Each structure stands twice: as C-alpha cells, then as structure tokens.
C-alpha cells in the first residue's frame, strides 16, 4: 500500500520555540488515522502543515507522493469551528468548494444535495448557519469537505465544541460515511475514546516539542458503531495502552 500522506523528519519552530521535533508519520491509503496528544502539543500544527496552511522549517510532507507547498490538490479540511460562511445558506456552504473549483452548475446541482443527504441535513438547505445547532454546522462542514471528493480528509477536532450526546451521533454518522467511502483520514482530537471509536491507528504525540511517541493499532472490526466499539472486549485494553502512552508523553523525559 502506498502512503496517502507521509511526514519525513518534520520540524517547526514558532518564535524560536520548537513545536514539531523530527516528526515521522505515515498514513496508509484508505486508513483512518487519529492523532492524540496533550493539549497544546503540536498536533493541530502538524495537521495544518499537511493542509499546506502553514509551512515547515525542516523535513518534508508529501501528500499523494507530492511535496506539500501550499494547500495541495485532493485534500479537504474540516475545521474546528466549522468554518462556515455566515452569509451563505447551508446549501451554498456545502457547494463552496465546488463553486471555487469552477465546476459546472449542473454538477454542483447534482452533487450538493447528495452530500447534504449523507450528513442528514436534508430539509435545512435554506437555513443560515446561525439558525442551526453546532452539530449541524459541523455536519455541513464535513459535507463541504466531502463534496469536492478529496483523497485525503483532514479533520481538526471537528467535534470538540458539540455536546457529548450529539458527538456520539456524529461519530456514528462519520463511521457510516467513512466505511462506505474509505477516504484516507487524519483526525486530530484530544479524546482517547473518540480516537479509538473512529480510527484504525491511533498516533500518540508527546507534549511540546511534539514527537511521535507511539502508534496503536485499533483491531476492532468494522463496521463499527460507538456502542459496539465501547462494548468490544478489546476496547478496555486498547484504551489502557493509549492512556499509558499518553501519560508517558505527558510526563516523559524532557530535555
């Protein structure tokens, strides 16, 4: 399997402060990879670097075999704050990526309703973001990213600001969609449970400067649902290992 995304020896500094420290990471094609780490470690920075929104000072990031210099083709991002335009309806927000890519009106008219349906927003197309709940805004953000048919989907703590119950619903929806589409996903979160429920591989990063502390394979069969994963006999064990690695990352040897 080729790598959808690979980071080779990536380092980055902010004002002389090391944020990413020789990070090596490989995301196999079609895999759902989650990055967890103590808050304030460089995990979001790493994701933003993959998205081409910020540069790296050393090493290189490749997506689809090509070095990232600015936002690469075939990559779409789901933002923490949903990133919807308040002046656009849900429909127009979902259509945004297609419109700026210059797709034909017919194609947009066919594609957008399909993705709105996928994220269960049918009936809300004409509403503005301020008129819908936080969970629905995140759904719309996801639909907008999926609509451009990216090969890599980058998700930056997309469910951090929605309440716990909505989050579980969103997890199941995301699992349903992902198990059908099998995009390569890099998902940043600070929740161990979220990471295990969703992903094939959990990447644990150390506290700043961020380094990859360990990889944990989540060998729980798919199709998954939040409840089935949490009830799975392997769950407690995997969670324990994530926890240990995270503790190590938090208190581990600091230079």
């Amino acid at each position, binding site marked *: 399997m080729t790598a959808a995304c690979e980071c080779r020896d990536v380092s980055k500094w902010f004002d002389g402060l090391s944020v990413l420290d020789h990070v090596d990471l490989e995301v196999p094609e079609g895999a759902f990879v989650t990055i967890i780490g103590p808050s304030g470690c460089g995990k979001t920075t790493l994701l933003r670097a993959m998205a081409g929104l910020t540069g790296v000072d050393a090493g290189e990031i490749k997506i689809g075999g090509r070095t990232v210099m600015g*936002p690469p083709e075939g990559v*779409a991002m789901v*933002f923490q704050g949903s*990133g919807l335009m308040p002046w656009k309806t849900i429909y127009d927000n979902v259509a*945004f990526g297609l419109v700026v890519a210059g797709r034909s009106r017919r194609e947009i008219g066919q594609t957008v309703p399909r993705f709105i349906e996928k994220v269960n927003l049918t009936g809300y197309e004409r509403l503005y973001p*301020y008129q819908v709940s936080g969970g629905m805004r995140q759904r719309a953000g996801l639909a907008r990213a999926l609509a451009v048919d990216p090969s890599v989907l980058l998700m930056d703590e997309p469910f951090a*600001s929605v309440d716990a119950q909505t989050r579980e*619903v969103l997890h199941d929806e995301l699992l349903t969609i992902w198990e059908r589409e099998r995009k390569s996903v890099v998902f940043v979160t600070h929740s161990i449970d979220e990471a295990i429920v969703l992903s094939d591989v959990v990447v644990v990063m150390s506290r700043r400067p961020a380094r990859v502390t360990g990889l944990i394979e989540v060998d729980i069969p798919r199709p998954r649902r939040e409840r089935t994963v949490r009830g799975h006999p392997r769950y407690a064990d995997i969670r324990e290992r994530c926890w240990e690695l995270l503790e190590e990352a938090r208190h581990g040897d600091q230079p």
Partner: protein
Amino acid sequence: MATSLSLERRASSSAPPPEVVERERRRRRSRHRLMWTVRVLSVAVVLVAWQVYGVRVNPILFAPPTAIAEAFVAMVRDGTLLSAFLQSLLVLVVGLGAAIVVSIPAALVWARYDPVDWAVQHYVNAIYATPLVALVPLLILWFGLGFLSRAIIVFSFAFFPLLLNAYQGAKSVDRELLEVARSFRCREYHVWRHVVLPSSVPFIMAGLNLAAGRSLVGLIIAEFYTTGTGLGYLVLQAANTFRTARMFVPVIVVMVLGVALLGVTRYLQRRVAPWSSQPERQ
C-alpha cells in the same frame, strides 16, 4: 438520527390551545395600544407646550407650531419648498452616491494590501481627524459656487465614515474563513467574492448609516456657503429676513429626510446582511 427524531416531534407537536393563543394575542395587542397611546400623548404634550409658549414670545425669536404650519402651506403653494427640496435631494444623491461607489472598493484594496495600507493610513487618519467644515471654503475656492461644489462637499462628508467602516470590515474578516478559502485553493477573486466582501457588508452598512447623517450636515453647510439654492439657502434666507416661522419649515424637512435616510439604511442592513443582526455563532 437523533436530530431527525427531534424534528419530527417538533413538527407533530400539537398547537397551543386556542384560549392560550387568544390570551397571548390580547396581551400583545393591549401592549401595542398602550405604546401608541404613550407616543401620541408625548407628541401632543410637546406640541401644546410649544404652542402655548410660542405665541407669547416675540415672533422674530420663535414660532409656534400653527405659524410653522401656515408657513409650510404657503411655501408649498408658491413652489419654493418643492424646488428647494429637489435641488437639495439631487446634490445629496449625487454626493452620497459617489461616496459609496468610490469609498468601498478603495477601502477593500486599502485593507487587503499592506503596502497600500502603509502608504495611506496616516493621510486618512489626518483627514478624518480634521473638522471637514474647515475645508469647505477651500473646496468652494477650487470648485466654485455651483452644483459641482456642493456635491463635492457632500461627498467629502460622507466619504470618510464609509471608507473607514469598510476598511474595518475588511480587516476584521474571520481568520478561519480565510483559511477555509485557502484550503479550498480559492483564487484571489473568489476570496474577495465569497469572504472579504460579504464579511464587510455589516460594517459597510453601519458606515452608510453614519454617512447618511454626515452627508446631510455637509449638504446644509454647502448650501449656506454657496447660497442661492436648496433647503439650506431657505433657512438662511428666512433667518436673514427674520421670518422665523419660515425658517423652521426647511429645518423640519431636513429632519424628516434624515430620519427617512436612517430608516432606509437600517432596512437595507436587515435585508442585505440578515446574519449580522443575529447573536454571534460560537
């Protein structure tokens, strides 16, 4: 799934019983009636007090509402009011319109390109801090006593609030939205069209609100200085001949014009940027 469930429940939930609806409607109606009673009373009290006081004062210094109404009728009959009004309106529309057309693109370019910002920031601040009234004689010296001069004075009064507000708007674009645009590989045109311009709209509307008031000030000052036309001239003429009742008429017309302009800009704000009057999303 949960959302669709809760949706269904909302759709199928029974309407409140008719007596509850009726009680609510009656309460709202009576409150509405009270509001209007208070308003009408407030106007009546002021008018009566004005009248009672007005008739006792030397008519050169003050005028009661009845005298102003008489003057109004007379000025409508002989056509002076209408022609002055139309002259003023034309100046206002041209001056304010030009200010809108020029200021908004200028502000957006200014805000979006740092070198432009560095080049003009201090000038704009300096001119904005200067009382523009002080420049009116200079403008008249340059552009004469005619229509052009008046329109330029109105333009200069309306221009800066519009420019500065649009600039603020373009500067305060949500950074996450700019990143969204970048991550979707937007070309510069699309960044403007989908992010910068719409996010500036509420600021531009607020600027328009300010500019509407300012442009009326500019209009009257221009007509004082250039003399001969418009509502400002009517005020001046009546004051110079001590016909105080006639002086109030154009003042009231300008006041009504100002209120109407503010009403229009507020209406536009609600229509053009419905999201901006809503509580901020998280």
